[in-house]
């Protein structure tokens, strides 16, 4: 008999050994966790955001803990695409896993240049398009909060590169399925959801915000019920494979997303709590399949009984 249970899944053209990825911004460019995780055992790595120009990021403090959650305001600090291609990608390429590069920009043209450059880099399996950034051309409107902006961005990217495009949706919207549908129509290969929820915390003794940037993005177990709900809603409306994320700490949490309709999951904040958690989740999924006597992981996708 073959290697059962079979954990393989596909996100369109991207074939994964197993459905467990690490989420953008929480695993660096793959080097920092080398003592704890063999990336070859993961479905893949989603890198920290890459932008066209280097970005210094936001003033500290950049983190604040909240109940079962974490606020961050890193502000997309990264060395820019040139340095990424020269210094980070060579290392990433050597890892025996799928490499998904998260890209971000403030203008449509930035995204397009980025996609073109990265498309030529080689060794990249897909781009994850972070559309949660404020659009400087549209006076701070977030690409990801308007279906028309999201559509035109993804459509443009489709022309700029052959790499599979995974569009990463923001939860800070009235109806996430609208944006999801726009991305689907524009040619996205898969969708990632959710990015962080905008939040804020205050130190009542100093009467100052706990973050240097005042507001930040909320991640961690606190947001899981919201993320699972959004995955379910999106699963019911679009035909694209989904990468579910938001507060996954264990295989059980990952399974909530899978049953809700995700094809794969990404582990974010949990990496800070336990650097080896992603591998433990792969193993936990395997055990669950065995216990449930299910041979093929993909049979679980969307298998919620209502």
């Amino acid at each position, binding site marked *: 008999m073959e290697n059962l249970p079979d954990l393989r899944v596909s996100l369109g053209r991207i074939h994964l050994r197993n459905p467990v990825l690490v989420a953008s911004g929480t695993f660096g460019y793959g080097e920092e966790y080398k003592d704890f995780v063999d990336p070859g055992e993961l479905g893949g790595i989603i890198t920290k955001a890459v932008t066209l120009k280097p970005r210094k990021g936001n003033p500290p403090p950049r983190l604040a803990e909240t109940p079962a959650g974490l606020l961050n305001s890193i502000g997309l600090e990264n060395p820019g695409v040139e340095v990424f291609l020269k210094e980070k990608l060579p290392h990433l390429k050597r890892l025996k896993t799928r490499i998904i590069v998260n890209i971000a920009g403030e203008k449509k043209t930035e995204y397009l240049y980025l996609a073109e450059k990265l498309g030529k880099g080689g060794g990249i399996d897909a781009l994850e398009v972070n559309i949660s950034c404020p659009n400087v051309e549209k006076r701070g409107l977030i690409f990801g909060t308007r279906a028309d902006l999201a559509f035109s961005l993804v459509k443009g990217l489709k022309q700029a590169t052959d790499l599979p495009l995974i569009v990463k949706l923001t939860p800070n919207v009235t109806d996430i399925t609208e944006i999801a549908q726009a991305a689907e129509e524009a040619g996205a290969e898969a969708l990632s959801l959710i990015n962080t929820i905008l939040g804020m915390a205050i130190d009542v003794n100093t009467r100052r915000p706990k973050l240097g940037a005042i507001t930040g993005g909320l991640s961690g177990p606190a947001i899981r019920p919201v993320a699972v709900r959004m995955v379910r809603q999106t699963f019911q409306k679009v035909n694209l494979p989904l990468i579910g994320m938001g507060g996954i700490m264990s295989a059980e949490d990952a399974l909530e997303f899978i049953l809700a309709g995700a094809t794969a999951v990404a582990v974010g904040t949990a990496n*800070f709590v336990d650097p080896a958690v992603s591998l433990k989740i792969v193993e936990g999924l395997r055990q669950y399949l065995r216990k449930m006597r299910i041979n093929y992981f993909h049979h679980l996708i969307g298998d919620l009984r209502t």
Partner: protein
Amino acid sequence: MEGTGSMYQVKATVLFNEKAGKAHYRMKLEVSQIAKDARPGQFVHIRCSSGDDPLLRRPFSIHKCAQGRIDILYQVVGRGTAILSKKRRGDQLDLLGPLGKGFEIDSAFSKIFIISGGMGVAPLYMVAQEITRLGQGKEVTVLLGAKNKELILDKDDLESLGLRVMIATEDGSEGYQGLVSDLFERLISSQTSLSLAVYSCGPVSMLKKIAELSSHQGFFCQVSLEQRMGCGLGACLGCVIRGTSGYLRVCKEGPVFDAQEILWDDPGLEIK
């Protein structure tokens, strides 16, 4: 650079966890892999709860290290440290370490000041120990500052290393009355700085004062800094402070920095 070796995730067994002052505790942990490699100034990242309250790990300097064991010296300030303080002999804790870049201890310096404010002594004991080990006729002075004499920690331990220990208390209940940085300023006022090295940890205001003296007088000065941490491994970019060359990760470029690398006026240095 000190401490670029391997990092480990281990289940450490608590050997003891005892009060060392009003809200201060010493905890000894059996943790051979980490102890083997630990350098003065490095830290461990401890998971205080197996659940999600609190969610994140907490960083603590490695206070002592010998025979497969490390000590941490800590103060209860919030939920994480409160939970730690309830641990008993035999309990297990999930630790990452040794993390970060430690102090550069160079035998070239003949005159050394180790300056602690409050809890700052935590990473400095191992510095003192290491310098003593390097031995040969150095002039080493340890300055311990605190609000009052009850808050002076480790005086005896440091003295039994054979070092000169001087105390400064803000209320004058022991030693010099005033700030430890002022005491330090008096002591070095008339001295040449070339062969002088200073290792320090404590409140930002104190470190800033010492850093200014170091930049005026040109002596070698390293400080251990704090910032809220996520991963502790350099991946999340969450723990930065502002340096002269841009943002620096406390968990990776630090926690020990050359005083001259830091922009001391940045409000982001104050955590609370």
